């Protein structure tokens, strides 16, 4: 819902409320509120005698209607009152339906005595006919109540104004005693619809009241009557009983009282003003603007507080306006508007936030989906065919079908099927709220359907077993996968059901995206959604699904990180550890390094041996130049291994948009905060180094051999120049030279092949190696420190290349040495010597040990014995491999003579 729609709705609200107010739809509520407010008189907290009656210039004289009012009675009362010099005497003719002559005389003789005649709206003529036109008469009409409450009075009388005076008596009184004020009120039209709100604010006992009997018996106080407008009337009228007015009073309220308050309102110019309809409209609009301004600040959760505060302020303002400014505000209209505004703004914010959240979540899900599955994948059926084919090929199913749940329906529909269709599912079993679907959901794993009891797919094959899997994503059931398979296939594949479950997870995700795509493309709006009664896919559900995707993505990334062959540790830009993989944990543990307690600088300095200052420079260079940096490690306690440390910055994939025209850069300059962190990787180059070392040795020997051959050739060529050599001898020399050239060429070819061959490609094939070098490394490794044994290694400078696979040779020799060491007597010596023959190199090892019967020893070697050690088992296997190099191993033992071994390896250069 955009802002224009919001404003439209708000304006409509104002219009509706104004219209309702115009047609008096809120009178009842407004009236009740008005009554309450009138009774909340601030003067109730003050002394009631505190000049409350100071403005009351009216006196009410109440007649008991039961008492017969004789002409003499009237005469006495009027005379007594007149003696106290009242300003006016107004006699309600309801007190005496027939006015006695003596009273008429008094009316005619005194200019300040008036008759007050009440007329009804309909019977104006009839009513007025009972009054003599000669008598000074003012008129009044019975007030009209608002739902039983008498709050207002009329200024002009309605009915036949030709017969009677049009102004009500209150205004005639005002005209008589204060013509200026009368003129002012008549000129300024402050009355709405001829009605005015009577001011009941002074509360009860505002007007002095005396019983007529007191007047009759002349028990009056001068100050009570002098200069007052005295109203005479019955206490309780026959026609009108107690009037309901907005005054808290325990006594009855008569028409006379009503007259008195009405007259006091007019005389004191204390009419309660009301806001006109135009004013109401303007007020409501101002309220809208003000409220919208306030609502834009803060989140939805404080809107309630704001609304509450505004409501309170409206109520308080209305009270203050009424009691201190005699203005009655349209409180109900304002409250109603405020509540509706709150609701509308709340809904608007809800929609906006939900839209933002949905957009953010969709962005996140799109990023997690870096497989970049295009929309066409979901549009066509073709990709599902590929999926189904792949699944079928892997699992060797007879038939399968993917079903998806239809939103709002309890049935399923077919997504894709192979060798079957949805029609093959028994009709009664297409309702996913029943079994077997409910079972599949509960198990969240493939379930086997008992086809004998109740088949799922119409079976054409009696032996076929049928399975059903629920396709669940983010705890939501999206569909089902059913298939049939031969039982022997399951028996032969123990991982079958595990594979099925794995596939189900992937298919669930595909189904999720398919449904999301279809949902987005058919999105519709509805009025119900706007008014909050019907929402689209809820944000919570979308959030859950996105979290599920992110979790899967995170799991994949983490498993890749932990599965890396290199030991890796990631630091943030401030040098603190973010994460390390398993290999790095093992690396640091082996070398007693507390990586989590060290910064990146400390860690690098420790493992490389480089000074901290230089490491700092390296890091600065890496960050600014965005380059990879490799450093060999220097771990003091570990000389057997060779590691390379790679340091590289990880750059954020979110590119910043530099949109400044003033930038004149040719290269994209990366700021430090676009770097996510620093990645350190430790690669174990030991094997590679060993392999290079082997090649290096091979080249060295080749070099020597070439030099040797060159020697022959040079010798031969030189001798051809000798004069003393006969031609026959020269021929012989030439023949020898040719033979030598041929021999050398073959050697070069062979060496060339070996040079370019990766000796790891075929681990059991032969390769030219220098065994003495390997043996030297083995002897000087840390593997053989358990016993106090001396290894006497032949320190001959012999360096001969033989054919062997370096790793297997290394492992074999290590195994043999292990056997000798385990058998050796504590403190004894193991001797290793070399003996080079023309075609072979022989390596002799022997110990001074306990030995064992040779027959038993050979049986252990050949695998004929049971319960032999791992060394014998490994050695047996490796001796088999060594035959490929034309190598021979002769190892024997005897009791008391220890073990001796001869390894015979074929030389490369003979």
């Amino acid at each position, binding site marked *: 819902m955009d802002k224009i729609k919001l404003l439209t709705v708000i304006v409509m609200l104002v219009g509706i409320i104004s219209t309702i107010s115009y047609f008096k739809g809120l009178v009842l509520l407004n009236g009740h509120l008005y009554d309450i407010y009138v009774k909340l008189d601030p003067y109730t907290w003050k002394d009631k005698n505190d000049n409350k009656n100071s403005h009351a210039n009216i006196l009410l004289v109440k007649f008991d209607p039961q008492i017969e009012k004789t002409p003499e009675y009237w005469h006495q009362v009027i005379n007594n009152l007149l003696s106290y010099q009242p300003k006016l005497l107004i006699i309600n003719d309801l007190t005496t339906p027939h006015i006695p002559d003596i009273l008429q005389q008094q009316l005619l003789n005194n200019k300040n005595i008036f008759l007050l005649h009440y007329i009804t709206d309909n019977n104006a003529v009839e009513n007025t006919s009972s009054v003599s036109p000669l008598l000074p008469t003012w008129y009044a009409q019975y007030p009209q109540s608002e739902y039983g409450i008498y709050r207002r009075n009329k200024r002009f009388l309605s009915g036949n104004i030709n017969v009677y005076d049009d102004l009500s008596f209150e205004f005639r009184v005002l005209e008589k005693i204060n013509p200026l004020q009368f003129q002012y009120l008549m000129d300024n039209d402050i009355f709405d619809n001829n009605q005015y709100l009577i001011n009941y604010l002074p509360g009860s006992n505002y007007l002095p009241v005396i019983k007529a009997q007191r007047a009759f018996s002349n028990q009056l106080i001068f100050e009570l009557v002098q200069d007052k407008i005295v109203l005479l009337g019955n206490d309780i009228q026959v026609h009108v009983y107690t009037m309901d007015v907005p005054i808290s009073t325990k006594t009855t309220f008569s028409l006379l009282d009503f007259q008195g308050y009405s007259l006091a309102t007019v005389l004191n110019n204390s009419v309660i003003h009301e806001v006109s309809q135009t004013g109401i409209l303007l007020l409501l609009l101002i309220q809208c603007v003000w409220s919208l301004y306030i609502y834009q600040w803060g989140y939805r959760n404080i809107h309630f507080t704001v609304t509450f505060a505004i409501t309170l302020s409206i109520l308080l303002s209305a009270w203050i306006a009424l009691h201190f400014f005699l203005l009655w505000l349209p409180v109900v209209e304002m409250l109603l508007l405020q509540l509706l505004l709150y609701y509308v703004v709340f809904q608007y914010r809800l929609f906006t936030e939900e839209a933002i959240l949905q957009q953010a979540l969709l962005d996140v899900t799109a990023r997690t989906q870096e497989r970049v599955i295009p929309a066409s994948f979901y549009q066509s059926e073709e990709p599902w065919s590929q999926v189904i084919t792949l699944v079928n090929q892997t699992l060797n199913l007879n038939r399968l079908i993917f079903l998806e749940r239809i939103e709002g329906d309890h049935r399923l529909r077919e997504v894709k099927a192979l060798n079957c269709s949805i029609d093959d599912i028994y009709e009664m079993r297409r309702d996913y709220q029943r079994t077997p679907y409910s079972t599949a959901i509960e198990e969240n794993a493939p379930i086997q359907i008992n086809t004998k009891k109740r088949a799922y797919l119409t079976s054409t094959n009696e032996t076929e077993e049928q399975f059903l899997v629920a396709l669940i994503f983010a705890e939501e059931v999206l569909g089902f996968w059913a298939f049939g398979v031969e039982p022997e296939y399951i028996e032969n594949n123990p991982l079958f059901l595990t594979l099925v479950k794995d596939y189900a997870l992937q298919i669930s995700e595909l189904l999720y995206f398919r449904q999301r795509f279809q949902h987005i493309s058919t999105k519709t709006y509805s009025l119900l959604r706007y008014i909050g009664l019907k929402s689209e896919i809820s944000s919570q559900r979308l959030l859950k699904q996105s979290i599920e995707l992110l979790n899967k993505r995170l799991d994949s990334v983490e498993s890749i990180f932990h599965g890396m062959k290199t030991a890796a540790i990631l630091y943030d830009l401030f040098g603190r550890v973010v994460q390390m993989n398993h290999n790095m944990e093992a690396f640091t543990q082996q070398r007693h390094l507390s990586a989590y307690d060290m910064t990146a600088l400390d860690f690098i300095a420790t493992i490389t041996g480089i000074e901290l200052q230089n490491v700092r420079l390296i890091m600065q260079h890496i960050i600014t130049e965005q380059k990879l940096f490799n450093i060999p490690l220097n771990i003091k306690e570990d000389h057997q291994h060779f590691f390379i440390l790679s340091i590289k910055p990880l750059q954020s994939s979110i590119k910043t948009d530099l949109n400044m025209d003033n930038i004149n850069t040719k290269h994209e300059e990366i700021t430090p905060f676009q770097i996510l962190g620093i990645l350190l990787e430790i690669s174990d180059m030991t094997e590679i180094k060993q392999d290079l070392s082997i090649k290096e040795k091979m080249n060295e020997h080749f*070099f*020597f*051999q070439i*030099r*040797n*051959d*060159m*020697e*022959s*050739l*040079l*010798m*031969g060529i*030189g*001798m051809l120049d*000798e004069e*003393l*050599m006969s031609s026959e*001898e020269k021929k012989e*020399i030439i023949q*020898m030279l040719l*033979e*030598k050239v041929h021999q050398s060429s073959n050697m070069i070819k062979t060496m060339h092949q070996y040079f370019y061959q990766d000796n790891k490609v075929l681990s059991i094939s032969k390769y030219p190696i220098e065994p003495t070098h390997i043996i030297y490394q083995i002897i000087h490794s840390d593997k053989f420190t358990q016993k106090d044994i001396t290894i006497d290694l032949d320190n*001959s*400078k*012999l*360096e*001969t290349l033989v054919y062997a696979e370096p790793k297997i040779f290394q492992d074999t020799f290590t195994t043999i040495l292990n056997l000798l060491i385990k058998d050796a007597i504590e403190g004894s010596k193991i001797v290793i010597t070399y*003996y*080079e*023959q*023309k075609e072979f190199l022989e390596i002799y090892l022997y110990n001074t040990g306990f030995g064992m019967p040779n027959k038993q020893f050979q049986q252990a070697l050949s695998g004929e014995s049971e319960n032999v050690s791992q060394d014998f088992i490994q050695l047996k296997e490796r001796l088999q491999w060594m035959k490929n190099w034309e190598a021979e191993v002769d190892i024997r033992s005897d009791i008391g003579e220890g073990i001796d071994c001869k390894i015979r390896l074929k*030389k490369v250069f003979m």
Partner: protein
Amino acid sequence: MKHIKTNKTISMLIVDDDLFIVKFLKKYFTHAGYNVFTAENGQQALEQIQKVSIDIIILDTMMPVMDGFQFLHQLRHTLHSMIPVISLTAMETQNSEADLLNAGASTVLFKPINHEVLSDTVSNIVDFLN
């Protein structure tokens, strides 16, 4: 080719596992008037020394059965012989020369060598002996 001028024929022992080198050197020095004996390895060379009187030895370093170092050790420390030995080696490094000299070689030449250089070296040693 330098012909030796001595009162007696100089006996030379050529020790090398490379048959071509042995043949070439034998031919060459025979023509030069030397009495040349040959051996394929250090072990055979020791046997020869004990059979015949050898005046000078041309010794290859890398040989099977017994290499040049082992032969020199045997020659100098077991047989206590002072026969001059010209050691030929393909390992052209400072260490290898020093090792050979320390082992007992009289002089070290690096392969491949010019036969004239070898001949001059032999002549110098013979002159010295004379």
